[in-house]
């Protein structure tokens, strides 16, 4: 069994705790974005686009056994960094775990500004969409 959602969140909080200025934090985020494998072109469909983002963001989910596996991509690298963290936290967990996950790490690593409605970079939409997938899969 892989680590729990909570354990991964704690891990990220420790990693981000190493940086004392915003620039280092964002450089790390950009790095995460660059390292996230691109989504294959056939998955970059209209259907997989997350609405409400200024840059295009694609999210693909599939069920492997009783786990949900996410893959995602974006034209903007900071958004890709954010989504890469979400994937690290939520992917490979059961629908139920994903649905009830409280993503407190976002606030703790100082990225909660990206959750605001007004930020059209859509971290909020991404979280919502990931939970929607979980809901949809659990209903099947």
């Amino acid at each position, binding site marked *: 069994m892989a680590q729990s959602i909570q354990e991964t969140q704690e891990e990220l909080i420790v990693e981000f705790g190493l940086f004392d200025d915003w*620039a280092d934090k964002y*450089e790390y985020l*950009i790095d995460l974005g660059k390292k996230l494998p691109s989504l294959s072109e056939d998955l970059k469909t209209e259907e997989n686009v997350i609405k409400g983002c*200024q*840059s*295009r963001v694609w999210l693909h989910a599939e069920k492997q056994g009783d786990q949900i596996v996410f893959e995602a991509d974006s034209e903007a*690298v900071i*958004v890709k960094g954010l989504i890469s963290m979400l994937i690290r936290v939520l992917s490979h967990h059961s629908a139920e775990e994903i649905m009830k996950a409280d993503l407190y790490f976002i606030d703790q690593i100082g990225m909660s500004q990206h959750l605001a409605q007004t930020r059209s*970079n859509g971290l909020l939409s991404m979280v919502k969409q990931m939970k929607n997938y979980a809901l949809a899969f659990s209903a099947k």
Partner: protein
Amino acid sequence: MTLDIQKIRADFPVLDQQVNGSPLIYFDNAATTQKPKSVIDALSHYYASDNANIHRGIHALAERATTAFELTRTKIKEFINAPSSDQIILTAGTTGSINLVAQTFGRANFSTGDKILISNLEHHSNIVPWQMIAEEKGAIIEVIPVDERGVLDLEAYRNLLDASVKLVAVNHVSNAIGTINPIAEMIQLAHAHGAKVLIDGAQSIAHLDIDVQALDIDFFAFSAHKLFGPTGVGVLYGKRELLESMPPYQGGGEMIKEVSFEGTTYNELPYKFEAGTPNIADVIALSAAIDYVNALSKEALFTQELALLAYATEQLSTIPGLRIIGTAPDKIAVISFVMDGIHPQDLGVLLDKFGIAIRTGHHCVQPLMKRFGLPGTCRASFAFYNTFEEIDLFVKALRRSINMLQ
């Protein structure tokens, strides 16, 4: 007249703050301008001392509020040199003004096969209202193209003009790339073919001298919030014979003369188009914004802004891989740009971390972005209260952000 920029900046309370640990640099003036203290004071003075509903009351507060409200109308009339203040219709914004014309003038005058000319530079607010009425009336929208620099193709415009064109609706200045359009010439050409012209002045009102009579403009629309005034107020100027011949827009109080269940007669201009209690406080505060601009002189302010534009253009041009979108010879102080291999949003997010407010995205001009084959741009737009030092800091932060992203 040389401007004392530090003194001017002190008039704008919002500018004096830290954002993310750095002094705010506000370069999003094309989206909305900041408000001088006199405008903010006018708003709070109205609510603290004069608040009343206007035009109906006979008591002292109603009188004061009505007088102040109508005084703004007079000031707007003078500001754009309209022949009379009853041709100044107060709306909620440029968008409201354009929709009003589409739903009244358009409804009364468009029929199947008529043409509405717009341009490839238009804001969605000057596209969608025409699409809505065109669809209803069977009218056709045609688009004046722009060249690589973002300049309207006047030759194509001439060729598009014929007797079936009922209206030309173009912006005076492009919000996304700053192009100043040759509206005097365009209006003459349109009139020669019997077409009326609506000018979307959202981006010109704060920067260029507007004389609706000298330019022979049929309809002129703008928003107070882009003129250092409050949000929620807009203006529609129209030629008298046009406004008089147009059917009313929304129904309600204020716009009627007499109401009975058998039928209603409508009030005269401008009230015919101003149903319901208007945005009294914000209209009154717009007076203070107009006074502010007049006191400093629009021309002096624009000269300062053009100097900022020239300096920023020169500085940005030194960044390898940066491409300025919109290189018209006549521009207001708006610079749109893209960076090879970097999404505009990433630059916007990082610049915000430096306390710098720019706009990224499609700027509500998706057809124009498509014309340039771009999903969006970064846009820095200056006002007279911006400084050369701010541009230096911006360029430095931009270089640093690009480094982080590459």
